């Protein structure tokens, strides 16, 4: 094709305007406040304002391509053909949170320009350009992403995982209603609704289907969910066509959903349908699915050569349905603007954006790793301290002797403690309500705090985590439960790609604080097989900013949970609390009935600082360090006692925190004893033991210490006693310790 599609679309617009029918303006124009048509509320001046946003979005798309051609821009996925979404940007309130599709450019511009009339000065052309050139001055992500987002305009930035924002949108909608029900003041008004836009191909994604399913599940329980889904349907996902009727069929049948369809190339039809959709959603507090039929212009992105998979005729047919041209024709036919006015508007927007673009390429970019990484998980320890101080003052002291209890009781109690402290805290997951959780960790909590705050969810971890993310955006402090570590993996993107990265991609302007509890690890005495004994946390350990806590005993569980919640509340951080199932009910340590693993409930001032390990000592002297966590602590202490009886001095370091890992303490162990035995209940490949070895190598000369690892095998966990064949045993730990002790230092 000799002419680029950019030129073709650009020229088509101008030619289309020139060729169109024009009303006789000398006979009188429509006034600003007149409706633009017989049965619509859309006024003439409003229609022109929407047109301006559409035109601006179009020229930004052209400019992104031009900049890319000069090597200055890094993103060319545009909104061309989708400009009908401008009406959503006009009709939602500025405090209706919206989670946007990457083609929602016109929507974003219109919403931003409305903001200025409501005390939110907005410069969206400049901001989008800053994003295109990845400038550190880009207000939403500081150059870390090209994304439609804005703190004051309630547009949390989305990642690129296509449908991954649907669960959290559902969560946010849930939060609005739950907040109202509980009488809590959240960050948006009680009658807010949540907007969520995405493409037709995105709807095929499992995460999207799961979110729709969860909404339907909620609807069948009569749970209100004021969510407006906007599907901008251009019929394609890059080169893959969406089957005809699929979107409609998928949604119409869903209980509780209102399905509305509009021609997204007709401004009036879109305006009226979206108006109605929003009214219905705001009034009924039920999901509304607005199916906007759009076209895709300029291919998927600048690098996509459409002719490889589409006929020229088809491409040109879509171009003929250009929504921006359609709006121009509407304005001409209804006597709102003249041809020369429209072309003036079009050309002056082009010139404006070009001038801004020439300026934007001079703006600074991120340079250093430190600059880039700053917003991942900013941590101000003094703020956590202050929060702990504040809350402990509200807690009553233990008051005298209390019976020591096992860890499950301690966790149950610390959860209750914080449900009291934080009215905005929620506990939810599979079976956590009346059943109290499959291990009874949440026993009695629904009764005590009500079903508004302690409730069951459907069987879908993506929905559980999405619910947490959405609620957290609006001011709740969610503590979701994942029933087993194995079940976390199917939903990990909600943490890995979404929750943990929100602060990074929004320069800490948005956060979603939460503590995710996960029943984890193995050693359940043959019960349950692999999926109840999963010992792999590799998927968690390289998520920047994510806190990983592994309590081995009751008093640590309490101290660590206090810190986790205070950190979430005061720093907006995301923490995971990996609870070793096999230690939930553990009572004894060295002998039956010795009660060695029972703890008194810690006094209010006890909190375990982030990253602080716990040291145990057995015997006199410092001959061996066992570095471990979770089940390794219990087993390691038993081995240590036996060695101590033989005169060996053992230091056992319970890491407690796998992220941030207590690096200093680990290195100090090697310095002190010269013999480090890592007991790592996870797999040899990918378990924390690997990291510890590297840290020691980096921190010390390799001559200075001896190192050994006892780990799980690179295996799945079989059912029954055979599980022990692939997991570290006390015998192995003992054997490895003795080998190390034999070696000189």
């Amino acid at each position: 094709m000799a002419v680029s599609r950019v030129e073709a679309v650009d020229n088509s617009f101008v030619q289309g305007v020139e060729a169109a029918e024009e009303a006789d303006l000398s006979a009188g124009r429509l006034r600003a406040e007149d409706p633009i048509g017989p049965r619509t509320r859309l006024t003439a001046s409003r229609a022109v304002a929407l047109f301006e946003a559409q035109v601006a979005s179009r020229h930004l798309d052209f400019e992104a391509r031009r900049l890319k051609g000069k090597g200055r821009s890094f993103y060319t996925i545009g909104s061309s053909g989708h400009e009908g979404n401008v009406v959503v940007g006009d009709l939602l309130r500025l405090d209706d949170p919206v989670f946007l599709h990457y083609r929602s450019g016109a929507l974003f511009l219109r919403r931003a320009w409305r903001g200025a009339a409501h005390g939110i000065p907005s410069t969206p052309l400049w901001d989008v350009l800053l994003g295109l050139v990845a400038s550190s001055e880009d207000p939403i992500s500081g150059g870390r992403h090209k994304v439609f987002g804005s703190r004051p305009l309630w547009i949390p930035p989305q990642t690129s995982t296509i449908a991954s924002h649907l669960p959290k949108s559902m969560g946010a909608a849930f939060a609005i209603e739950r907040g109202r029900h509980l009488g809590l003041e959240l960050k948006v008004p009680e009658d807010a609704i949540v907007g969520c836009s995405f493409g037709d191909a995105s709807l095929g994604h499992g995460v999207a289907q799961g979110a729709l399913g969860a909404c339907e599940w909620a609807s069948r329980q009569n749970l209100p969910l004021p969510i407006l889904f906007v599907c901008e349907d251009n019929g394609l996902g890059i080169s893959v066509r969406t089957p005809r009727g699929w979107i409609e069929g998928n949604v119409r049948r869903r209980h509780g959903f209102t399905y509305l369809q509009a021609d997204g190339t007709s401004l009036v039809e879109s305006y009226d349908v979206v108006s109605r959709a929003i009214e219905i959603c705001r009034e009924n507090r039920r999901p509304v699915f607005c199916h906007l039929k759009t076209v895709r212009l300029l291919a998927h992105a600048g690098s996509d050569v459409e002719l490889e998979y589409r006929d020229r005729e088809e491409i040109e047919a879509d171009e003929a349905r250009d929504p921006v041209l359609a709006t121009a024709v509407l304005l001409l036919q209804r006597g709102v603007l003249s041809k020369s006015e429209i072309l003036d508007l079009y050309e002056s927007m082009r010139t404006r954006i070009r001038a801004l673009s020439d300026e934007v390429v001079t703006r600074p970019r991120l340079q250093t790793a430190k600059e880039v990484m700053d917003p991942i998980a900013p941590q101000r320890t003094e703020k956590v301290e202050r929060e702990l101080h504040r809350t402990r003052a509200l807690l009553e002291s233990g008051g005298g002797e209390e019976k020591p209890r096992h860890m499950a009781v301690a966790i149950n109690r610390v959860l209750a403690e914080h449900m009291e402290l934080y009215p905005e805290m929620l506990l939810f997951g599979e079976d956590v309500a009346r059943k109290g959780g499959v291990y009874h960790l949440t026993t009695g909590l629904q009764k005590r705090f009500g079903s508004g705050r302690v409730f069951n969810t459907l069987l879908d971890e993506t929905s559980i985590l999405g619910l947490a993310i959405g609620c957290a955006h609006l001011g709740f402090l969610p503590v979701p439960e994942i029933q087993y570590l194995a079940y976390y993996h199917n939903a990990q993107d909600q943490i890995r790609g979404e929750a943990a990265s929100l602060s990074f991609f929004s320069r800490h302007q948005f956060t979603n604080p939460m503590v995710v509890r996960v029943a984890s690890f193995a050693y359940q005495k043959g019960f349950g097989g692999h999926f109840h004994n999963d010992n792999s946390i590799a998927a968690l350990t390289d998520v920047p900013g994510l806190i990983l806590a592994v309590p081995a005993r009751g008093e640590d569980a309490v101290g660590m949970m206090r810190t986790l919640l205070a950190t979430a509340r005061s720093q907006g951080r995301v923490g995971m609390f990996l609870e070793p199932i096999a230690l939930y009910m553990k009572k004894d340590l060295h002998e039956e009935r010795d009660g060695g693993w029972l703890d008194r409930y810690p006094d209010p001032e006890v909190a375990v600082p982030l990253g602080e390990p716990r040291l145990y000592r057995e015997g006199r002297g410092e001959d061996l360090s066992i570095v471990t966590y979770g089940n390794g602590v219990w087993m390691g202490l038993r081995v240590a006692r036996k060695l101590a009886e033989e005169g060996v001095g053992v230091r056992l370091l319970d890491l407690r925190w796998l992220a941030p890992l207590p690096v200093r303490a680990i290195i100090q162990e090697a310095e002190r004893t010269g013999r480090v035995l890592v007991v790592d209940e996870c797999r040899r490949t990918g378990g924390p033991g690997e990291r510890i070895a590297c840290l020691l190598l980096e921190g010390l000369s390799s001559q200075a210490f001896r190192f050994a690892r006892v780990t799980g095998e690179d295996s799945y966990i079989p059912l029954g006693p055979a599980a022990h064949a692939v997991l570290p045993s006390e015998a192995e730990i003992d054997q490895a310790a003795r080998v190390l002790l034999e070696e000189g230092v």
Partner: protein
Amino acid sequence: MRRVVIVCPGRGSYGREELGSLRRLEAEAPARTTEWLDRADRIRKERGDSGVRELDALESFRPSCHLRGAQGSGLIYCGSWIDWQRIDPEKIEPVAVVGNSLGWYTALAVSGSLDFDSGFTLVDSMGRIQDDLALGQQLIYPLVGENWQSDPEREERFQEALQLVAGQVWESIRFGGFSVLGGESPGLDALEAHLAPVELGGRSYPFRLAGSRGFHTPLAAEVSQEAVKTLTQKIGWSAPRIPLIDGQGRVWSPWSTDPAELARYTLERQVVGLFDFQAAVRGALTEFGPEAIVLLGPGDSLGAAVGQTLIRSGWWGIQDRADFQSRQNSNVPVVVSMGRSDQAQTVLR
């Protein structure tokens, strides 16, 4: 042809130095001046007031006269308008118009939303209504240092001080690196007690602006009510021909502006709410990407505020006062002040 933003000054821009300026302009460029002064004089004389020529020709500058809304507003408007007429349309292309406070009324006229007569009637009437009904005073305080860069510590303490007088004192104008506050005496006294004194550019801050009232704060509520009652119908409002940016940083386009909404903003929100001149100038830069900023007279009172706004955004690579001055001294100054003949030459017919 340079793409430029036109900026219209506000109260205080017609000062001692400007006395007689209209007469001088008329002598220099009658074709650009006479018609407009005739119109202004006619409108005022019809009401039984002295014309603008008469006020401009007084032997000495009288603050009680020239700085009062009823007299001063019209002088400022005329001075700005005549400068606008003197500009060569072959030399610059105006891409947006901005005004500071009272300068908003001038901006309405310069942008074509109001014709000259309507604009003059508006600014003149508002001046009188404000004299009659506006309460309080204004206080000015710098939030930048000698280098015109933000002083975050001072900004923080300023915000704390403002909190202490919440409900009594309001931010009235964000004027570049300066904050102009509006309140009644007791509130302003209380605020002053909490503001650390600052020396900047040879002046001591904070100080009260002479002849000022609590403009752009709730203290002007009755002004707004009276203005809406008497002026909404009297003035013919239309969409601007050149885009306008208001005291909220909002753009009013030639195509989509609803004149009734513009009128409402002008007579209501603009009168009783913060006028964020900084956001307006920043909006002009980031929405239109101009090559330069042209400051209409009278006087030359906006240069510092505009410079400080440029510095705050690091616009055109200008990071501090030294950068700004060096750009201004170069062959291509970025801010062209009609009040300085050397700069004005570059844009005059």
